């Protein structure tokens, strides 16, 4: 009953804000672009490249408004939400250009507003405001929790933790859990230990060798400033029957904290950033999962399905704009396409489409437009053909990041190599469903793995003039992505 009322109240709040925003958008057309992706998918790089390319008029031949010269200029403006930090665009570009380093992992929400001045096809001068939000990808994992009770979440988390390869990593937490009685009295120390062991297990799963992604709650991995608060100190318990918990029991305490976590942490995040998007790009790092093995691929698939279930796709109508904002275009993008030879891009796209099949079907049914693309917002490599004996390997040339290893070799971050990552399968279904799944890093020694996608450093970029503004960032299909996401708003 309570949850019903809560849900109705939420809808009312969203609708009220939608009406307010609709009014202001009539005067200043605005697009809220959601850049979604799990941690490591490349959200920050995507946003940085997008802003840089729009502001400095990069080579985007397929982004019609820019290519045909209709975009006069784009400038940064103070963002609308005063409480949210600003997206540090300048610092990220500096890091890319001067240090040849990727931006570090995002730790908090940040926002940026870009105002684009353009001339419409009929010749009228217009502006379009683009609001973009960046946030830690881990937080996304929390969205599916909104629809779950503590009991459901516990059961799911436990079931998952008994599957390979998680079972190995969760053994210490499992031992602690076995000694814990959910119906015993409240015990802060027990809760602290359980939460710590549970978090350690989640961290271990995230290691590049396993690259698992279905690891809620996400703030345990990236707690921000509230680490240690009671709302962050809970863990799943092995629960028996369906009877309500006794007052003062450990289980009641955990349940309360779980609800508090949802109420204080997850719901505000959802409201502030997800319930009001117009366009959405979902960035997926499929290559890390392919590196790790079939378990990681399956995990990624399940995570994407759960997250995308939280979106509200649908055709734009006046009613929807007033009452319930909907996302009318979604682009699924396999990032880091530069880590592959272009002849494999089609296959990468097919793999991604296979992974997000459910979500695509759902969004299509609701009337939203969908596209899938393999892209690289900043292209770090060149392509090459390696002739070894009679073999011709379609490869890429780049400088791997320090500490990356292939076979027996560990790179120091300054050697240039040509890498062939392994042939992607023609049929994406064969990846996980086949009788003989491929081997990843999680299955055994690195030299037996079927795929090895190295992480490359950003390319050397030469400014043609003064300052970082004159640098042109190379990319793969970023222009096509922009055309799909924003092209129609510049008509």
């Amino acid at each position: 009953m309570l949850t019903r009322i809560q849900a109705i109240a939420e809808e009312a709040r969203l609708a009220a804000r939608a009406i307010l925003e609709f009014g202001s958008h009539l005067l200043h057309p605005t697009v809220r672009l959601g850049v979604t992706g799990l941690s490591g998918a490349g959200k920050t790089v995507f946003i940085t490249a997008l802003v840089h390319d729009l502001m400095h008029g990069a080579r985007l031949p397929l982004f019609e408004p820019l290519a045909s010269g209709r975009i006069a200029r784009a400038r940064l403006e103070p963002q609308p939400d005063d409480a949210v930090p600003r997206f540090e665009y300048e610092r990220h570009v500096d890091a890319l250009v001067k240090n040849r380093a990727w931006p570090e992992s995002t730790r908090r929400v940040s926002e940026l507003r870009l105002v684009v001045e353009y001339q419409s096809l009929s010749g009228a001068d217009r502006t379009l405001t683009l609001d973009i939000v960046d946030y830690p990808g881990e937080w996304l994992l929390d969205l599916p929790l909104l629809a779950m009770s503590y009991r459901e979440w516990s059961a799911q988390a436990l079931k998952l933790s008994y599957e390979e390869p998680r079972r190995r990593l969760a053994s210490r937490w499992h031992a602690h859990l076995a000694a814990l009685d959910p119906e015993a009295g409240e015990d802060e120390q027990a809760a602290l230990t359980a939460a710590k062991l549970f978090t350690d297990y989640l961290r271990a799963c995230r290691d590049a060798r396993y690259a698992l992604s279905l690891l809620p709650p996400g703030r345990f991995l990236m707690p921000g400033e509230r680490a240690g608060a009671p709302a962050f100190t809970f863990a799943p318990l092995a629960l028996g029957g369906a009877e309500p918990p006794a007052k003062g029991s450990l289980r009641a305490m955990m349940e309360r904290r779980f609800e508090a976590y949802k109420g204080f942490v997850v719901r505000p995040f959802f409201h502030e950033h997800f319930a009001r998007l117009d366009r959405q790009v979902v960035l997926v790092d499929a290559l890390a999962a392919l590196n790790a093995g079939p378990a990681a691929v399956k995990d990624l698939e399940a995570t994407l399905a759960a997250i995308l279930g939280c979106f509200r796709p649908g055709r734009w109508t006046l009613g929807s704009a007033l009452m319930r904002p909907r996302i009318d275009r979604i682009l699924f993008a396999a990032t880091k396409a530069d880590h592959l030879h272009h002849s494999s891009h089609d296959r990468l796209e097919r793999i991604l489409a296979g992974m997000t099949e459910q979500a695509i079907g759902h969004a299509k049914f609701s009337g939203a437009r969908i596209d899938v693309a393999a892209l690289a917002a900043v292209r770090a490599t060149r392509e090459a053909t390696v002739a070894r004996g009679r073999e011709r390997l379609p490869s890429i040339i780049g400088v791997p990041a320090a500490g990356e290893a292939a076979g027996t070799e560990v790179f120091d971050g300054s050697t240039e190599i040509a890498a062939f990552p392994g042939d992607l399968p023609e049929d994406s279904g064969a990846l996980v469903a086949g009788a003989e799944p491929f081997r990843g890093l999680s299955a055994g020694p690195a030299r037996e793995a079927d795929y090895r996608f190295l992480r490359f450093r950003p390319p050397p970029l030469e400014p043609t003039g003064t300052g970082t503004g004159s640098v042109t960032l190379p990319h793969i299909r970023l222009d096509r992505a922009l055309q799909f996401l924003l092209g129609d708003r510049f008509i």
Partner: protein
Amino acid sequence: MTNMTSRHRKPAAFRLDDPDVVLAPAQAEGRAGAGAAAGGSIVVTPAPEPALPAAAPAPPAPSRRRFPFGTLFWSALGGLIVLGLGLLGTQLVEGLFARAEWLGILGAACGTLTLAALLAILAREVFGLARLKNIEKLQVRAQAALATDDRQEARAIVRDLIAFERSEPRLARARAMLASHVEEIIDGADLIRLAERELMGPLDEEARRSVAAAAKRVSVVTAISPRALVDMLFVLVNAILLVRRLADLYGGRPGLLGLIRLFRHVVAHLALTGGMAAGDSLIQQMLGHGIAAKLSARLGEGVLNGLLTARLGLAAIEVARPLPFAALPRPLLGDLAADLIARRKPDDGVPASEQS
């Protein structure tokens, strides 16, 4: 899965500073590894920087609105003429009724039939024009999609194309095959090329045969006709029939207006490409003509007329074809001219079908 493991190649990494690795100069992919014998066992050939795709064409700007006085004039004039004709008709029928009732009824019936037939003809003309317009639009869109590699647009084009060629029974299989590929993830330009190979391939073959046959007919008739007037007429009629057959073949069904429009485009196309074609075929043409003319003036004239017809046919193919030539080779005058000058050899097995 087994076939994947059998074809799956293991990942590999090669340090460029390794003495075994030779870095070849950048070149096109096809010739990669040509220098394998030069030294080390592993040759790395960087691909040349890919050419940037052409910029996306801007959607046509809405033209500045000017009041269409010209249209108004012609519409009003047309209205007046139609009214006048109607008046004449009714007066005629009334006059007939005044003479005798049965005459009046006969006149009214004839008038109604005339009107109905006229409407049907008009409808067919409009339909034919719409189809031609459709072809032109498809050509333009396909050209743009090839340049921009836009998948959504390419899918829409291929769907439209399948719908457009629905009535062509020879393409049933190709259509089904293509329809099953539309939803797959193929790059936009590749999808268009696939459609061209599947749908246009068989039609191109047929079109080439038609053009060759027409050219041959023209050259033979010119060579043996007794009067210049006869072969001029023959060339004209043949050209009209050829353009019409080609349009039919590619799915346009032009009526009279459609044919006029088509002819205009063909001539425009000839004028446009005439300069370019001169480079590659004029010499050949003159040479053929020259040698033939040495043998006999009539024969030389026949060859020239045949070549001109072939040229017209090729231009008509370009205009009537819903997709631009991208994946398949553009038919060249040379292919047809060889056929034309060689005439019929004794071992030529297909003269019957060419006469169809």
